């Protein structure tokens, strides 16, 4: 007749408890707060805490609390206005030794956090902040790598004492080396293969074609975008944003989300600064003559210095085409005062390859000048004949020319900077690492904090109303079974919130819409069951059998109908971005949990109500 295994009740009880527990963190409000972290060897200690407290007191801000936590200082405040004020005051006072960031501090009790219960993250549309989508110029990245490969080929040939006429790049991924002597071809092949085993080499007469394999190109592209993601992460850390999101999207895009940030101009400047350094040897000769006559030595190129010459124009200088070391070989950079000259300087550390190259070069060129070129890339968009044309303006400036006064290895100093601020700025840019490939901003969204708050309110109101509409209708239409349906729907909602919190899903405005829609869809399962029970009753079955039959027969239909609906949700998730994904997640989770609550839980309740009694004449449905 109408029975339901006891262990299933047990499961329901556990599900209910777990759902309640993991949904709980969402009701704790977050404190607007300011987080202070140390950078550059500064310390976060009770002394700093005291300093922060007095600073805030002077500015007329009363914090809720000032806590030391994992080496960070967390200042909780009473409202958002105070938070911004505190942020400004502390930033000024603490200077560049500390990073001061706006944060939202959780008020969830410790024991909940210990069992992994966290509130759902809020999307930018619900809390305000900026979102950037950046396009990585893969072509430029590959170009750069191909140039480096060509240079490596030249070096290999030179080191192997193979004379060559030219080494040139041809088309996409081929480099053609023309040798002086066809007899040397085999020797050249061996030399190159020795130093770069993953190149495809082909000898034809006195030409040697060097090909980079497709797989290698692919690897370079992936590496380039990963390096950019790393670089952005470093730069954003310097910006002081709590919980930023920096993600690869597809093969050539990067998404950056900075919750709470409102000053897009500053964020963009820091993110978009594509500055890098190159160390190049100075070629002897009169640069002014070279510019005037156009007779530039074959191995050299004309660069201009940042300072102006006596004629009021930038001074030209001839630099070797060959790069000694470049930004991507740079490991670290710190600004300092040069102990010998007392001028601002940047101390630089290179990686193994860069260090070796620097060592090789400086060994041969002690006493000769070497230059540092600062390269900045400025993306430009112009409209030509109604079509958008993206170009890039590259600014190359020689920021210092200094004599090599010894053999450099991995560590050395760059001097000749105007001010200690300039040194600090340069060091920051260098330290953040360089971008492997230039990037353009192709999408930018700002959501103000007040709109975020409004969105949450509206979204929640909508969910509450849609929920109430459904509940009232069911109570009226199905009476006792309406109560059962309502209980099932409530548990469904609780489970949905718990699951989304547990998986750290981000709640967006469309996500809230998804929750509302889930109510609409999960209703379907309950309606199917209730209607089926009515039908069985009409066919003359006794009430308890009718209930059992109703659940039994509706289950198959519910599974078929919901699995197809989940399929649509999966497609949305797979092909959607940002907010659409949020919508898809709540839809999928909601349908899945509703299958359980509608079939399993509501049946358990129905059995609880009607199962125990011997004889029932009629049921209220």
């Amino acid at each position, binding site marked *: 007749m109408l029975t339901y295994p006891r262990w299933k009740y047990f499961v329901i009880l556990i599900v209910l408890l777990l759902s309640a527990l993991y949904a709980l963190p969402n009701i704790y409000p977050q404190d607007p707060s300011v987080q202070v972290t140390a950078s550059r060897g500064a310390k976060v200690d009770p002394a700093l805490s005291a300093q922060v407290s007095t600073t805030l007191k002077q500015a007329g801000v009363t914090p809720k609390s000032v806590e030391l936590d994992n080496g960070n200082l967390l200042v909780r405040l009473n409202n958002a206005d105070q938070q911004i004020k505190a942020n400004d005051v502390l930033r000024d006072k603490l200077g560049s030794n500390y990073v001061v960031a706006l944060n939202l501090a959780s008020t969830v009790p410790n024991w909940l956090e210990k069992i992994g219960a966290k509130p759902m993250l809020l999307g930018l549309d619900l809390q305000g902040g900026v979102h950037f989508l950046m396009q990585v110029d893969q072509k430029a990245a590959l170009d750069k790598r191909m140039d480096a490969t060509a240079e490596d080929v030249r070096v290999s040939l030179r080191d192997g004492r193979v004379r060559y006429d030219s080494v040139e790049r041809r088309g996409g991924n081929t480099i053609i080396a023309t040798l002086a002597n066809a007899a040397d071809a085999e020797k050249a092949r061996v030399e190159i293969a020795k130093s770069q085993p993953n190149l495809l080499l082909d000898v034809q007469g006195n030409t040697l074609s060097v090909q980079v394999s497709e797989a290698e190109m692919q690897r370079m592209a992936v590496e380039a975008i990963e390096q950019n993601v790393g670089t952005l992460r470093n730069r954003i850390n310097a910006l002081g944003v709590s919980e930023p999101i920096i993600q690869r999207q597809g093969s050539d895009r990067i998404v950056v989300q900075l919750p709470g940030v409102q000053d897009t101009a500053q964020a963009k400047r820091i993110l978009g600064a594509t500055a890098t350094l190159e160390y190049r040897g100075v070629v002897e000769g009169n640069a002014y003559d070279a510019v005037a006559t156009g007779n530039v030595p074959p191995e050299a190129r004309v660069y201009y210095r940042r300072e102006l010459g006596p004629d009021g124009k930038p001074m030209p200088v001839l630099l070797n085409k060959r790069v000694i070391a470049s930004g991507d070989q740079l490991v670290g950079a710190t600004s300092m005062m040069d102990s010998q000259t007392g001028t601002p300087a940047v101390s630089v550390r290179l990686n193994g390859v860069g260090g070796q190259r620097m060592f090789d070069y400086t060994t041969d060129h002690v006493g000769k000048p070497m230059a540092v070129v600062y390269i900045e890339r400025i993306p430009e968009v112009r409209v030509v004949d109604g079509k958008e044309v993206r170009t890039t303006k590259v*600014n190359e400036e020689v920021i210092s020319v200094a004599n090599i006064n010894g053999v450099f290895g991995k560590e050395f100093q760059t001097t000749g900077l105007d001010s200690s601020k300039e040194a600090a700025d340069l060091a920051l840019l260098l330290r953040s690492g360089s971008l492997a490939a230039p990037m353009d901003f*192709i*999408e930018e969204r*700002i959501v103000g904090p007040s709109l975020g708050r409004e969105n949450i309110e509206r979204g929640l109101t909508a969910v509450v109303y849609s929920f109430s509409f459904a509940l009232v209708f069911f109570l009226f*239409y199905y009476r006792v079974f309406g109560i059962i349906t309502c209980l099932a729907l409530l548990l469904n909602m609780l489970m949905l919130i718990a699951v989304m919190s547990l998986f750290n899903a981000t709640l967006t405005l469309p996500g809230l819409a998804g929750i509302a829609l889930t109510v609409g869809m999960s209703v379907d399962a309950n309606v199917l069951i209730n209607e089926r029970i009515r039908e069985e009753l009409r066919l003359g079955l006794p009430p308890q059998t009718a209930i059992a039959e109703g659940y039994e027969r509706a289950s198959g239909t519910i599974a078929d109908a919901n699995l197809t609906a*989940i399929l649509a949700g999966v497609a949305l998730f797979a092909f959607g971005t940002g907010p659409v994904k949020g919508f898809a997640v709540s839809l999928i989770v909601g349908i899945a949990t509703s299958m359980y609550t509608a079939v399993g839980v509501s049946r358990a309740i129905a059995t609880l109500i009607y199962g125990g009694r011997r004889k029932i004449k009629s049921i209220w449905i």
Partner: protein
Amino acid sequence: MKPFNVFPYDSNINFIRLRWLSLGIALAMLLVAVGGMVVKGFNFALDFTGGAVTEMRFEKPVDVDDVRERLDRAGYGGAQVQSFGSGNDLLIRLQPKQAAAGAEDKGNTTASDVQNALAFEGNPGKVLRSEVVGPQVGKDLAINGLWALIFVVVGFLIYISFRFEKKFAIAAVLTTLHDVVVVTGWFALSGHEFDLTVLAGVLSVMGFSINDTIVVFDRVRENFRSMRATPQEILNKSINQTLSRTVITSFVAFLTVFALYLYGGGSLQGMAESQMIGIIIGTLSSIFVACPLLTIGFLKVTKQDLMPKAKDEAALARRP
């Protein structure tokens, strides 16, 4: 106590007899929708076209013409300005300026530009929201939307063929596509803005529509196995038996989405609209289109199509 009911117990409307009429109307709607898309096209939102949109809130109502003039002076010609809400809120659409040369302009964002241009004395404006999207992103979105559609259609075909039968799969997918096209067509015809959330709404209509259709088909399958009657009678009976469920579900689902439309604010309205229309069309099509499709041409179902046959065939194969 007697239950409430939307439809009398033994409703016996002959839906199949109306099939040419209902299919004709469905086809007409489809053609109008496609025609609307071809002739009128969509009012694509920023997500698809690229450009910039800024939402600002002022302390006092502002004069829209004045705003337009100020923007013009700031170098943003042809800006669309629209006030909404209490009249203190402005929605401004414009083409972002080409990045001017020179490093100091690099960080200039359209939002702060607009804010500067609209710095009224004593009536400061706050940027609520600002978006700049390149056209490339829009193209990608459209392509992704199309892929999602294909993925869903293929997924439905496989799942339904596996659980039901090929004819059912085709009929269900045709019905669902019909619904999606009609909803999309509505956006073309009404000129309402088509943005990313609307796209999500349209795709979720597929989920709802197929859900509705599957429930009816499920009953058709059950009845084919247990009843002795002509396919037409069975189809009719199945629709009638599931009619009150179909209507109640749709009614409640419509209510919930209607709440979204009423209380969700501007950014959810498009999505809610697509879903409201989707629910109505999806409900009607599961009644008037899905089953009638099973009576015509190569989609005509017979009892053999639905009898569990795997066992018999295996048994037959074992015979000497």
